């Protein structure tokens, strides 16, 4: 069992950080030699889910696709702005995750995709995303564009009955899909996963990327 490795952020190690490198390398070599997989706390979906690919519109009304967000880790989450409880709760948790990541959060984007494009215009999505964290990107699109990305990740969503006042709710899958900087699906989380578990896995993923 490989013990948990301390994250090393500095690219040019100084002072005490230098002393961590040798044990880290040894631990890594042992891990590789034995073929030990990283100790993920979320579900490892590498090879089981497709790469990050979609055609959507960002909060500024620009056409974007999966390649737009390459070069950083991406957390993909589906929801809608008229959802008063679970979506804000999840996005608040992801905001906490970003705060805990510190400078590493610069290497991560949260892609919040609307499953309610009729009400969620780019402007609404921009305002909503900004209320949670500057690194949340609100994405919307046509019905068919949303359906395509949802189908790609097996995300179900159904519109509920019209309520008094004309509103409606949308039931939706609540998974958090994590992609590496090359757009490969790596991990699947849920809103029930703790901030610390998500932080742990994102750090591990960033470190793996920095080494490769």
């Amino acid at each position, binding site marked *: 069992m490989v013990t948990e490795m301390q994250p090393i952020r500095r690219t040019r190690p100084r002072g005490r950080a230098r002393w961590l490198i040798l044990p880290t390398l040894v631990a890594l070599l042992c891990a590789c030699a034995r073929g030990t997989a990283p100790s993920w706390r979320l579900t490892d979906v590498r090879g089981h889910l497709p790469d990050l690919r979609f055609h959507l519109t960002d909060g500024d009304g620009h056409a974007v696709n999966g390649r737009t967000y390459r070069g950083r880790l991406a957390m993909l989450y589906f929801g809608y702005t008229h959802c*008063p*409880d679970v979506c804000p*709760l999840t996005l608040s948790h992801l905001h906490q995750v970003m705060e805990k990541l510190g400078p590493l959060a610069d290497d991560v984007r949260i892609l919040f995709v609307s499953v309610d494009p009729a009400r969620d215009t780019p402007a609404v999505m921009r*305002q909503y995303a900004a209320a949670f964290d500057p690194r949340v990107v609100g994405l919307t699109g046509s019905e068919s564009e949303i359906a395509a990305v949802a189908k790609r990740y097996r995300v179900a969503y159904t519109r509920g009955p019209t309520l*008094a006042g004309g509103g409606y709710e949308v039931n939706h899958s*609540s998974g958090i899909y994590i992609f590496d900087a090359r757009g490969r699906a790596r991990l699947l989380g*849920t*809103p029930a996963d703790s901030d610390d578990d998500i932080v742990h896995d994102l750090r591990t993923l960033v470190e793996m990327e920095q080494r490769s």
Partner: protein
Amino acid sequence: MSAARALPLAALLLVAAGALAGGDGALTADGAWIRVLPGDLPAAGYVTLRNAGDTEMALTGARSSAYRRIMLHRSAGAGGMSGMVPVARLPVPAHGTARLAPGGYHLMLMDPVHPIAPGRKVTLTLVFDGGRETLNVEFRARPANAVGP
């Protein structure tokens, strides 16, 4: 009816009303907050209710001059799906508590009369047992990314 006969009757009615109310001041609320979302998007209200009385009371709704419509809801997750179901009554057991908290029971606050800025206090009137008792509670408006009161 003469005044002499009406007075004891009125007194009797008052006593009966007090008993029906499940004990004066038996219900209290704390940690009340609202997660405010941008624009006129629906918000969620959260609070912990305590019942010091000997009778179960149930939250059945709420009203406020700040929102045109308020519904009691519960978020429910099953099979990786998340959604909301309307709730008719949330019991607050005798000598017990009931929690409205993110991811569970919440008051869905719709159509704000005026935009509500984080930091403001908003008074909601919580309605128990269909109006048998009411409780005015000050809710603290918190930003969208808040995780608690």
